[in-house]
C-alpha cells in the first residue's frame, strides 16, 4: 500500500491550519503589552514621534486593514524589519531558526537513543533490578527543571572537565554539533524520560499480544520478534506522544539556549518580547508555528508508515 495519497491528503489539510496560524499570530502579537513606538525610542518619546512611528508601522490603521497588510507581507516573504536589530525579519529568522532546528533535532535523536534501548531493557526485565534502577533514574531526571540540569552539566562537563564548550555556536557543521551537544543533551533528558516511560509500558503491552505468541509459535528468533513484531507496534503510541512533545521541546529550547548562550530562535524570542520588537515576535511566532505543524505532519507520516491502518 502506497503512502503517497495519504501524504498528499495530509498536506492539503495543512492549509486551514496555516490560515489559522496566521490569524492567531496576528491577534496575539497585537495583544502584547506596551507599544512598539515607545520601545523604539524610549519611554520619554513625544506623542508626535509615537504617532509617526505607529504610522510607519501601519499600526494606526483599522485591524482588518492591518491583517490584509500582514497577509501581503507574508505572501511576499517580507515580514518587515526588526526594530531592535535593524535588519529584515525574514533574514534574521533564516539565520536563527536553523540553529534551533538543529538543537531540537539533536535533542530528539539523543532522547530516542536513550529511550528505545532502555525501554526495552526495562520492559524485558519488568520489575527487576534493571527496570527499577532505570525508572528511578529517569524519575529523578523528569522532576529536575531543565535549566537546573543544564547548569549542572555546564558546571561539570564544560567548566570543570572542559570536555565541551561552555556555550556559543561553531562555524562548521561538526563544530556546531559539538557546541550544541550539551544543550541538546540537557533538552533531551526530560523528553527521554517521558518517551521511555511510554515506550516501556507499550512494549509490555505488546509482549502480551497474541501476535507475538504467534510469531514465537512460528519459530522466529527472539531478536527478530522484538524488532519487527514488538518494537514497531509499541512505537505507534510513542510516536504520537513524540509529536505532541515537540511544543514542549521548543519551550525547553528557549531555556537551554539562554543557559548555554546559543544564538537560536528561542533566545531571540525572549529578547524580542522584552524589547517589544513587534515585527520580530510576529515573524518568529509564525516561523515556530509553521515548524510545529510541519513536525506534526512528519510524525503523522511516520505513524502511517508504522501502522497501515492509519492511512485509510
Amino acid at each position, binding site marked *: *500500500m502506497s503512502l503517497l495519497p495519504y501524504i498528499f491528503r495530509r498536506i492539503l489539510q495543512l492549509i486551514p491550519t496555516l490560515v489559522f496560524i496566521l490569524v492567531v499570530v496576528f491577534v496575539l502579537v497585537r495583544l502584547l503589552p506596551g507599544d512598539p513606538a515607545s520601545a523604539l525610542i524610549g519611554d520619554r518619546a513625544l506623542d508626535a514621534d509615537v504617532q509617526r512611528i505607529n504610522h510607519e508601522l501601519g499600526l494606526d490603521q483599522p485591524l482588518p486593514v492591518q491583517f490584509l497588510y500582514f497577509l501581503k507581507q507574508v505572501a511576499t516573504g517580507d515580514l518587515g524589519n526588526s526594530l531592535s536589530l535593524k535588519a529584515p525579519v525574514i533574514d534574521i529568522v533564516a539565520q536563527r531558526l536553523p540553529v534551533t532546528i538543529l538543537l531540537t533535532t539533536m535533542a530528539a535523536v539523543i532522547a530516542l537513543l536513550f529511550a528505545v534501548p532502555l525501554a526495552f531493557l526495562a520492559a524485558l526485565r519488568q520489575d527487576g533490578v534493571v527496570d527499577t534502577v532505570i525508572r528511578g533514574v529517569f524519575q529523578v531526571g523528569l522532576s529536575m527543571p531543565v535549566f537546573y540540569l543544564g547548569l549542572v552539566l555546564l558546571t561539570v562537563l564544560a567548566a570543570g572537565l572542559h570536555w565541551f564548550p561552555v556555550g556559543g555556536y561553531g562555524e562548521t557543521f561538526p563544530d556546531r554539533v559539538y557546541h550544541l551537544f550539551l544543550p541538546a543533551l540537557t533538552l533531551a533528558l526530560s523528553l527521554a524520560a517521558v518517551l521511555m516511560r511510554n515506550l516501556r509500558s507499550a512494549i509490555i503491552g505488546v509482549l*502480551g*499480544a*497474541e*501476535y507475538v*505468541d*504467534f*510469531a*514465537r*509459535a*512460528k*519459530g*522466529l*528468533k*527472539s531478536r*527478530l520478534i522484538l524488532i*519487527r*513484531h514488538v518494537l*514497531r*507496534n509499541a512505537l*505507534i503510541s510513542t510516536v504520537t506522544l513524540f509529536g505532541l512533545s515537540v511544543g514542549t521541546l521548543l519551550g525547553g529550547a528557549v531555556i537551554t539556549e539562554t543557559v548555554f548562550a546559543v544564538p537560536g530562535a528561542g533566545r531571540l524570542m525572549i529578547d524580542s518580547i522584552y524589547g517589544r520588537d513587534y515585527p520580530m515576535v510576529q515573524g518568529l511566532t509564525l516561523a515556530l508555528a509553521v515548524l510545529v505543524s510541519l513536525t506534526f505532519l512528519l510524525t503523522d507520516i511516520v505513524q502511517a508508515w*508504522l*501502522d*497501515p*491502518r492509519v492511512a485509510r
Partner: protein
Amino acid sequence: MSALPSQALTPALSVRDLTTTFVTSAGRVTAVDNVGFDVFPGEVLGLVGESGSGKSVTLRSIMRLIHAPGVVGGSVLWQGRDLVTMPERELRRIRGAEIAMIFQEPMTALNPVLPVGLQIEENLKAHTPLDRAGRTKRALELMDLVGIPEARRRLSDYPHQFSGGMRQRAMIAISLASNPKLLLADEPTTALDVTIQDQILKLILELKRELGMSVVFVTHDLGVVAATCDRMAVMYAGRIVETGEVASVFAKPRHAYTRGLLGSVPRSGAERTMLLSIDGTPPSLAAIPPGCPFNPRCSFATEVCRTVVPPLDEVSPARLAACHHHDRVAAAGSPVA
C-alpha cells in the same frame, strides 16, 4: 475417515502429566491438570470440552507459549525429545517447522502492521533454505492452497484488509508454510460462518492427507469432531475425563460429562433442537469441587464422587475414562445412538 492408527505404532507426540498453573487474584490455580495423551502419525485427535476447560492452555503449553508467572510441568515428548525442558534454540527449530499452531483468534494472532505476505514468508525464512524469490513463490502457492483469491495482489495487503474467513485462511497458510508434521488447530473454524467453516475443515483434512500431518483439533463442537477426527479426548476443568475412538465414544460414552456433551449436540436435518443440555456451569479454577470435578452437575453422582478423584483408567479396550460409574453411564446408552 482414515484407517484407525494401530496402538503398536509409536506416537509422534506423547503428552504426560502436563500441568499448567497460573497466578490469579485468588492465588495459584491449575488450568491444566495432569493431562496426558498420544497423537499418532497421520491421525486427527479431537480435543473437546466446554469453553474454559483448558483446551487452549493445553496447546499453548505444548508449544511452550505460557507466560510467567504461569508454570508448565510434566513432559511433552516430540519424537523422543522433551519440549518442556529443551533449550530455546532447539525449540525454535521445531516451532513452526515440525509443529505448527493455528490460533483461536485470527483477528488478534496476525500482526496488524505487517503485510500478510511477509508474515508467511518470515516462517519460510526461518525454516527453509529458499531465497527471496523462492519464498514469494511459495507464499503464493500457499495462498492458492488455502483458497485466498488474487494471491499476488493480496501478498502486500494487511490483515485489516482481509475478511474474517480470509484471515483464518491466511493464518492456516502461515502455519502450513514449512510443511509441519503436527498441526495444533485451536478452534480454527469457530469464528466463521457455516459455509466457510466447512471449506476450512475440508481444507485441513485434504492437507493432512496430502502432507501426512497429524492434527490435534480443538473444538467445542462435537459435530465437527464426528466429521473430522479419528480419536477424541474430552476435557473438563483442566483434566482429560475420557478418550477413545470417535465412533466408539459416540456410540457408548463412558463418562457422564461426555454423555452430557453428546446430548447437547443439535440433531442434523430439520430438527436442530437441543435434546439434553448439561445443567449448571463448569467450576471456576479457584473453586474446583473435591472428588470428581463434574459431580455437582452429574445425575450419576454418588457419595464416592464427592470425595474421591476418579483416576483416568482403561475401562474397555482403547478407551480411558475417569468416572466411578462408567458402567452405569455406558449402560444408560448414548443420546446420539
